[in-house]
């Protein structure tokens, strides 16, 4: 059984994101993730309005990072959202998008320790405890919220590299695997198993989410055109090992990254090849994407995140997923 989640980037006007969120809920999506980049609209403000216009869909930042926002602020934000929509809030946290963080001179230092301590802080403080900790990265001296969180907020950790995947499984309720290709998900499962075993968890205890770049349309070329900018960002921020595995030269990724930072979109998008699209996205007609999702589910994916761009026309693509993809996975409208 796989659940479907959807990702929105609040680059869009708030009411468009909310419109699509309502549509996602109506059509049977289980979870909604909203990205957190400083140059888009604020993730928590976006989620607050989404929460006001939806009733069932789970939602959360996907993913926030502890470099731009102290984990105590993240904990405060998700706990407040949970008050608006009890039991519907999830928290996605990861190291963040290297390309965007570089724009504000943010260094992704000690990522493993930073994420481990951040998850600990969010978990402890949202459980109502008074927090005292002296970590390698964060120090908290007696912090406690003046309000209660009525339920446990699941924390998903975004991960791509081996150590972060293992850590995510060890400390998270779920792992958001930043990958779309079956071989990457398969490889990730090994690290996830290892990480889960560190704390005596079974693989079934951890939600395995494939956080894919997704584009579906009736005409494959339209789906492909829509996904190119997103694939460019993925290649630009990809760890060297992942690039090597897919035979993508580091120089190409560097060139794309520099072009993105300089806002030279043609230079950023033109090096994107069909192979890169195949590697870093689920893209094509409904029939093609069903085939690709099937492969990920067989490997052990329990949540498929249809990430940006979703398709050339978001509303139509959501409807296509609902009418032509969901039936294959026994998901009915409004479930």
């Amino acid at each position, binding site marked *: 059984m796989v659940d479907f989640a959807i990702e929105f980037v609040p680059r869009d*006007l*708030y*009411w*468009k994101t*909310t*419109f699509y969120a*309502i*549509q996602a809920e*109506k059509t049977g999506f289980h979870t909604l993730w909203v990205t957190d980049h400083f140059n888009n609209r604020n993730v928590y403000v976006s989620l607050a309005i989404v929460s006001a*216009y*939806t009733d069932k869909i789970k939602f959360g930042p996907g993913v926030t990072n502890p470099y731009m926002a102290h984990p105590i602020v993240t904990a405060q934000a998700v706990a407040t959202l949970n008050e608006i929509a009890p039991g519907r809030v999830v928290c996605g946290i990861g190291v963040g998008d290297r390309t965007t963080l570089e724009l504000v001179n943010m260094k992704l230092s000690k990522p493993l320790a930073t994420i481990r301590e951040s998850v600990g802080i969010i978990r402890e403080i949202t459980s109502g405890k008074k927090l005292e900790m002296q970590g390698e990265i964060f120090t908290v001296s007696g912090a406690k919220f003046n309000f209660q969180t009525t339920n446990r907020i699941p924390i998903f950790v975004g991960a791509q590299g081996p150590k972060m995947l293992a850590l995510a499984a060890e400390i998270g309720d779920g792992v958001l695997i930043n990958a779309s290709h079956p071989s990457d998900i398969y490889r990730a499962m090994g690290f996830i198993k290892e990480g889960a075993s560190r704390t005596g968890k079974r693989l079934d205890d951890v939600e395995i989410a494939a956080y894919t770049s997704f584009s579906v349309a009736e005409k494959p070329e339209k789906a492909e055109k829509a996904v190119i900018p997103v694939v460019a960002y993925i290649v630009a921020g990809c760890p060297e090992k992942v690039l090597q595995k897919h035979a993508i030269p580091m120089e190409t990724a560097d060139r794309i990254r520099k072009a993105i930072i300089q806002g030279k979109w043609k230079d950023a998008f033109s090096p994107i090849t069909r192979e890169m699209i195949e590697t870093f996205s689920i893209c094509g007609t409904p029939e093609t994407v069903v085939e690709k999702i099937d492969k990920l589910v067989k490997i052990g994916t329990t949540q498929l995140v249809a990430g940006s761009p979703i398709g050339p*026309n*978001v*509303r139509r693509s959501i409807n296509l997923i609902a009418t032509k993809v969901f039936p294959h996975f026994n998901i009915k409208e409004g479930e």
Partner: protein
Amino acid sequence: MKLEKIVERIPSSSWEAISEKLIDIVLNSSNSNKMPSGLAKTILYYWQRDQLNTKIGIQRLLEASAIIDPEETVEVLKELGLQEAIAVIESH
């Protein structure tokens, strides 16, 4: 003629189709940022309640699309043969 009166003249058999076309205009126009925030919230309210294909929903969508993209809105009304309505949108 007011928008309310325009909608009165649209046969209920066309509500679904016109609603779809107006939603497309509102969501996909490059002028979407012209949408007044209060009107956006009203549209979200009706969308959440599955009422964008009702008389009141279409009124609000028509109001929004006339602000965001009057030319496209006129095209939709032409397709429906609502000539009087076009004059209202053009004077909006």
